[in-house]
């Protein structure tokens, strides 16, 4: 809110973009001044990403202008970049087999008669990394970097272009709280340097922490624009979803765990160094920690999705104890797994909703290997209604649904198996507030019905809201265990970052 140049550096004027018959962005205007951090919030599918892609010249608008420093911008990625607009994408847009330096200067590497100037390129890349304070080997291939590090390389690329306008689309989705703090401070630094920043996020607290002004989109229309000071988190959320949902938010459940269902002992795998873990019927166990702490590796090793070097896992369902040896045996024994990478691992986006739901349930929905279409349809329909898929059109391709709805489909296909043990890895990453609440509700119901649930989440409020007990993982080991009553963000963070040691 400090001193700001009066003139906006970038303006979007009545942008309209339709896909097929559908309006994605409906006459939206947004303007940002130098040094301003401007939040754009809205549910998935509200049109945020489309609007940003128009600003970055990746998509051509049907009508309306993008004005930078007073003159109208031609719609092309190159033009936008030259005009000083750079976009940090939601889904990482790095090239796996190119080096860090090359990725930072992708498409804009310095050349002499076509030849890349290696030294100069590395110098620029090094500066950019220095500016955001990250150290990484410039010659390393992206494919060998951790997710978080990739996110920072992504940001370094945007910064390296010395942009006037920096657009970040869900930059913290894959980051841990510590990294998020770092990123937010970094953005404030950049803004003070006079850069205009457009910040897209579902995480309302972050918005209120660093942003000066906010634009709220719903169904492709601008429903509110103004200074952050004149509004409150609750108001913002209400305007985003267009309905009261405080009810579903922040409702703790009183759980009464039953017998141990899952027992994992001495689990060793790449990134996992000897972990023992128990989950009881009707209990939600949360796994907290920083990205790269080995949580995903742990759960995948437990259920056999990845090969584990040593350790045994048993699943006890009404008295019968089975050993989980391979992933298939786990699924047959009654394990459900909602993976971290929804679009690539969770769903076959090119297939219809009912086909995705049929996938793990096919044996039950067929006789002698022949599918029973009627049964499959009925089954899928009831499930997609149960998880509140909107619209519940099971003949539609999964890829046509928004993130939140896609996640609901993933959950639905496992609910069909009445899992006795359910693993959810980052269940609401990149999911809008409304769907988030619904998914939380589903997870809780699942536990209430006696399923043992294991949740991995980097979203602390979510972890705290869902979990009955939280194990904090660092360097592939459980650093401490917190019961719901004495768990709070600080406690989890201190364990995750290894400041102190709590004995369970």
């Amino acid at each position, binding site marked *: 809110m400090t001193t700001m140049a009066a003139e906006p550096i970038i303006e979007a004027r009545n942008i309209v973009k*339709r*896909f*097929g*018959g*559908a*309006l*994605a962005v409906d006459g939206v205007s947004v303007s940002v001044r130098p040094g301003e951090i401007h939040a754009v919030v809205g549910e*998935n*599918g509200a*049109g945020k*990403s*489309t609007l940003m*892609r128009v600003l970055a010249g*990746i*998509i*051509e608008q049907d009508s309306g202008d993008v004005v930078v420093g007073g003159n109208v911008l031609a719609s092309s990625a190159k033009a936008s970049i030259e005009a000083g607009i750079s976009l940090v994408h939601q889904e990482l847009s790095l090239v796996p087999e190119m080096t860090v330096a090359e990725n930072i200067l992708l498409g804009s590497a310095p050349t002499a008669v076509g030849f890349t100037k290696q030294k100069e390129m590395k110098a620029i890349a090094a500066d950019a990394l220095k500016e955001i304070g990250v150290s990484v080997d410039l010659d390393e291939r992206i494919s060998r970097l951790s997710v978080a590090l990739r996110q920072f390389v992504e940001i370094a690329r945007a910064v390296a272009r010395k942009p006037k306008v920096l657009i970040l689309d869900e930059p913290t989705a894959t980051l841990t709280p510590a990294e998020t703090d770092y990123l937010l401070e970094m953005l404030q630094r950049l803004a003070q340097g006079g850069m205009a920043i457009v910040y897209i996020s579902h995480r309302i607290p972050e918005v209120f922490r660093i942003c000066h002004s906010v634009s709220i989109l719903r*169904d*492709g229309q601008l429903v509110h624009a103004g200074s952050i000071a004149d509004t409150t988190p609750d108001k913002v959320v209400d305007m985003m979803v267009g309905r009261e949902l405080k009810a579903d938010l922040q409702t703790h459940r009183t759980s009464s765990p039953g017998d141990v269902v899952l027992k994992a002992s001495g689990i060793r795998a790449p990134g996992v160094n000897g972990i023992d873990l128990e989950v009881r019927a009707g209990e939600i166990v949360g796994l907290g920690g920083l990205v790269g702490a080995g949580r995903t590796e742990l759960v995948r090793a437990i259920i056999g*999705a990845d090969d584990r070097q040593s350790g045994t896992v048993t699943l006890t369902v009404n008295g019968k104890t089975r050993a989980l040896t391979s*992933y*298939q045996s*786990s*699924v*047959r024994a009654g394990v459900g*797994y909602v*993976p971290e990478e929804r679009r*690539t*691992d*969770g*769903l*076959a*986006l*090119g*297939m219809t909703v009912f*086909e*995705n739901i*049929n*996938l*793990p349930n*096919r*044996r039950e929905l*067929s006789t002698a*290997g*022949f*599918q029973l279409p009627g049964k499959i349809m009925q089954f899928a329909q009831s499930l997609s209604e149960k998880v509140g898929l*909107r*619209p519940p*059109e099971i003949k*539609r391709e999964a*890829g*046509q*649904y*928004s993130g939140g*709805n896609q996640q609901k489909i993933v959950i639905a*296909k496992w609910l069909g198996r009445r899992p006795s043990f359910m693993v959810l890895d980052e269940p609401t990453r990149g999911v809008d507030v409304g769907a988030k609440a619904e998914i939380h509700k589903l997870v809780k119901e699942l536990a209430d019905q006696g399923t043992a649930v294991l949740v991995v989440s980097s979203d602390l409020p979510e972890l705290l809201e869902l979990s009955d007990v939280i194990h904090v993982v660092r360097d592939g080991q459980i650093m401490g265990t917190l019961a719901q009553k004495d768990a709070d963000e600080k406690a989890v963070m201190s364990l995750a970052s290894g400041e102190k040691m709590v004995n369970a």
Partner: protein
Amino acid sequence: MAKETLTETIAVAEAASIEPQAKQTTSGRLFMWVADNGIFVFTALLVLFAVIFVDGFASLVNITDVFHRAAPIGIVAVGMTFVVISGNYLDLSVVAQVATSAVIFIAVSNVYGIPLAMLAALVAAVLYGLANGIAVGFFKANAVIVTLSTTYIGLGLLRYFSGGSIFFGPQDGPIREFGLGKLGPVPYSAVVLLIMTILLSILLTRTNFGFLVRSFGVNEKATRLSGTNTGLVIIGAFIVTAIAAMIAGFVLAAFSNTAVSAMSDGYDFRALAAIIVGGTSVFGGKGSVFRTLLGVIFVSVLTNVLVLSQISFGYQQVALGALIVLAVSVDAVARKVSKR
């Protein structure tokens, strides 16, 4: 513009979540229909053209010839559709598979009788399927090179053990009768093709195995993480292909009553061409056995028409190539237009 086609998925995603009943313009729907059913239209037009302008085309005896062209390559193609839909490009080793089957069929039946011959051929076919399937499914090796190497190995063995000589069936007997037999103008070989198409179509669309082949083609990881042994699925796909190739070998051998290791040269890419013209995606996931059948009929009718018109071999190839590209271009363009 390609920019759009690339962001297409995101686009549609947003469109859908905004306006569930996002209606397409009528012209858009028309173009989509053409895009989806191009092969039907093409085949219909080609046949219509031939009937009107190419004398002799409509004669019964010529229809038989078209079926003779379509049958062996068609049986291979409908089988290979499984490998293509599973997202593994193609199975080059069908060349070796057809020849092996044909030689075994004639040679063994000459001594030990037909049932044993079929059994021996079946063994060989299953071995092909297993070798290809294991290498691709479990070793995650590249299908093109795997099937290329099994082609070398297979033809090598065939030529080593058969000495490469040409084998003749008896001048009369069941094989001969089957080879020359007809239902009206339809030779038995074409009947076999039809039956194979129906059976494989059921296998692909109505069974869990077929479902898994398709879903593997769309997203391997998601299929695996739904608790599927994807390795077995791939092996299955290659075995289906191998058995189809085996039957093609029988048909070919019975028709010509001879068998030699060189008789199926070029079956690999010719079958692929038919599959692609039919509209099955080489990306995997999308496609159908009936489309492949149409593709085969289209290519066979085309060749037949060109020969009837006394076009030389060179021009025949040019026309075939051009039509492959044309058929797919129409599809691609129509899709783009319908997006507008």
